């Protein structure tokens, strides 16, 4: 069944691509069918625990789902379907639709494949398919392909090759590629490899989950890919790194004496990622970039949770994994819709869309609230639990760091909301209409999902619980989430509902208030109509008040921003290229020189004959 689903995806991708050549409509329909039919089959037909075997090159490829991967695969499939529906109107009239559909489908397939892999070989195969299909997406719009695309690919390749190395080393000593075998027999590895392999794997997964020194690809790649894909990219694809990290943490690191040290380091890296990425997000003036940095930051939270590794922290992390997929998916869709309708995503240019695109605004609002971690939405639940877990674990400084990140996060949340939707309507955007229904519904659904999960977190806790128990966490009393103050104090059935009702009432009240008050009496001034202290602004000066929106803040954090890792990587890259350039001058172009090399080599070998051959 699983094989069939993957094959359907693969075949569908090709058929879609070919069909798109015939007629765009056929391509659209085939694309939707390709995503939805196998996805439906996945929900209905794949039992957890069923195992399929394939053989290749003397290796056995084993496929099957575990509770943990089932949790992740629901994100993939769910987000995949919604984004597919969203993508059809989004891509209408654009070029390279065929390539988009093809890579989209392959991405979904490869992610499911990763989750279904029970051995490292197929894990790696799908991992690489995911990498190159997402790479092709990143460069799809043809902007900055050499810089952004290559950067993404280099980092992905470093990660993938680290994984490749780890898996062949494990295989050479344990004679098995099965995930379970390598985890269970981890102790049989030599001591050096016991350190080396988890580090390699953490690098591999750290790249995909944009862990701090390895994150530099992420903001560019996220913002450069088509928005219909970025939701999947940030929401699901980066979660594959988290999936791998969870596996490594609970299986390998736990068996290491140095495990706690590694955990601490990773947790700190995660915390730092969260804080720094948040600061970066604040300074962005482009919605895409802002969300991209925000994604990196959120991954930082998740990494902290996974690294701490107490049941509560894991619970929080996995919860955040799911809802991050939802609200970030929704937000990227929002940006995509704005891009589609207005043609730009720059805060400085777009504003006041609240009336033009109300439904988009509502989904953005809900998602942003979830992102900021404000109760009663789901973001709050996960963050609360994360802080709680950290405090239980005596990681007070880390808590402060995360708290700082979280608070700073409000700034960019506000900036995002304000940038697009609030403020004056510009006449420039008078023609803008609400996005097509097929684009609005997926984002609304996702936004509402965060709402529902904030209210009934048990819906999600149950599968997470199953997953965690599968990877070896003992549940006291059958449910891990009981450890959280949030639920043990207030009971887990009603939980946050009272708060919710109050908030909802206030919300509805304001909505009604605004409805009745209407827009009468509002004075329209140009957004550029600001005091210039007697100096006449020049034509090209953009004096929108959103320019340098956060200037004081930016000035405050300037010293941090100066130290970008990106710069060091670039310098390193340039240095390498210079070295390479130097190296290739060995080939002087003079045939005689080559002949001299040959004689030189001959002389060297003859001189060192004894050392070589005894």
């Amino acid at each position, binding site marked *: 069944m699983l094989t069939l689903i993957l094959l359907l995806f693969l075949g569908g991708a090709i058929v879609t691509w070919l069909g798109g050549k015939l007629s765009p409509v056929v391509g659209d329909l085939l694309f939707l069918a390709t995503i939805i039919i196998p996805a439906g089959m996945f929900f209905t037909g794949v039992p957890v625990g069923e195992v399929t075997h394939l053989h290749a090159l003397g290796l056995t490829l084993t496929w099957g789902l575990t509770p943990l991967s089932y949790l992740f695969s629901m994100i993939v499939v769910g987000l995949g379907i919604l984004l597919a529906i969203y993508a059809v109107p989004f891509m209408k009239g654009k070029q390279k639709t065929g390539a988009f559909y093809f890579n989209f489908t392959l991405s979904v397939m490869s992610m499911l494949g990763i989750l279904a892999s029970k051995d490292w070989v197929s894990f790696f195969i799908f991992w690489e398919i995911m990498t190159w299909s997402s790479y092709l997406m990143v460069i799809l719009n043809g902007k900055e392909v050499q810089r952004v695309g290559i950067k993404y690919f280099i980092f992905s390749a470093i990660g993938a090759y680290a994984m490749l190395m780890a898996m062949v080393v494990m295989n050479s000593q344990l004679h098995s590629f099965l995930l379970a075998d390598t985890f269970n027999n981890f102790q049989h590895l030599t001591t050096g490899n016991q350190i080396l392999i988890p580090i390699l794997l953490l690098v591999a997964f750290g790249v995909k989950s944009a862990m701090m020194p390895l994150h530099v690809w992420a903001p560019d790649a996220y913002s450069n890919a088509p928005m219909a894909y970025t939701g999947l990219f940030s929401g699901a694809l980066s979660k594959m790194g988290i999936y791998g990290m969870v596996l490594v943490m609970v299986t390998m690191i736990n068996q290491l004496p140095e495990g706690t040290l590694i955990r601490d380091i990773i947790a700190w890296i995660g915390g730092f990622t969260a804080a720094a990425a948040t600061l970066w997000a604040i300074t962005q003036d482009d919605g895409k970039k802002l969300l991209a940095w925000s994604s990196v930051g959120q991954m930082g939270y998740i990494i902290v949770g996974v690294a701490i590794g107490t049941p509560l922290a894991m619970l929080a992390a996995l919860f955040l994994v799911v809802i991050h997929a939802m609200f970030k998916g929704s937000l990227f869709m929002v940006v995509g819709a704005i891009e589609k309708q207005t043609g730009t995503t720059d805060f400085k240019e777009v504003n006041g869309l609240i009336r033009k695109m109300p439904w988009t605004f509502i989904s953005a609002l809900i998602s942003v609230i979830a992102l900021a971690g404000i109760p009663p939405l789901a973001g709050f639940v996960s963050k609360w639990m994360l802080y709680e877990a950290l405090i239980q674990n005596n990681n007070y400084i880390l808590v402060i760091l995360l708290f700082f990140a979280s608070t700073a996060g409000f700034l960019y949340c506000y900036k995002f909301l304000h940038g697009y939707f609030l403020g004056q309507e510009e006449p420039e955007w008078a023609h803008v209409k609400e996005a097509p229904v097929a684009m609005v519904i997926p984002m609304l659904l996702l936004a509402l999902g965060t709402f529902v999960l904030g209210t009934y977190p048990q819906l999600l806790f149950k599968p997470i619980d199953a997953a965690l128990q599968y990877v070896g966490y003992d549940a006291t009393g059958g449910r891990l989430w009981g450890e959280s103050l949030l639920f043990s104090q207030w009971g887990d059935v009603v939980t946050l509902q009272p708060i919710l009702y109050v908030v909802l009432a206030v919300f509805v009240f304001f909505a009604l208030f605004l409805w009745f008050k209407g827009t009468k009496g509002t004075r329209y001034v140009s957004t550029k109509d600001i005091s210039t202290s007697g100096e006449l602004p020049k034509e090209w000066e953009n004096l929108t008040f959103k320019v340098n929106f956060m200037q004081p803040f930016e000035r405050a954090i300037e010293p941090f921003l100066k130290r970008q890792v990106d710069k060091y990587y670039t310098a390193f890259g340039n240095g390498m290229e210079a070295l390479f350039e130097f190296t290739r001058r060995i080939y002087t*172009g*003079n045939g005689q020189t080559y002949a001299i090399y040959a004689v030189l080599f001959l002389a060297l070998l003859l001189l060192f004959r004894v050392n070589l051959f005894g």
Partner: protein
Amino acid sequence: MDSTYFQYLDYAVYGTAVLVMLTGLYAALVKRSLLKIVIGLSIVDSGLNLLIVTLGYLKGGTAPIFSAGYDGTQTMVDPIPQALVLTAIVIGFGVTAVALSLVIRLWRHHHTLYIDEIKNLKW
């Protein structure tokens, strides 16, 4: 031919062959003219051929031909290196001819045989 004198030659022939090869190789590696390089390579071939034939030589041996006058007692020199050298000479000639035709082509193209001028392809 008196074989006693040949013991003094033990190293002389090999030494000469190697020296001739090295001289040719020196020309091929250092001289700037393409033709000189080809000449050098053909000198290397000469030295090599001498070396190989010398290898097959046996003191007091006769040529490996059972002509009518052969009495069946004399030792014969090793015929195999001779056969190989025969092949090598002909092949060497073929390669030299190709090399010279390339030299002519390069002359046509560059109007110089100075090898430092002929490096459009590099790095």
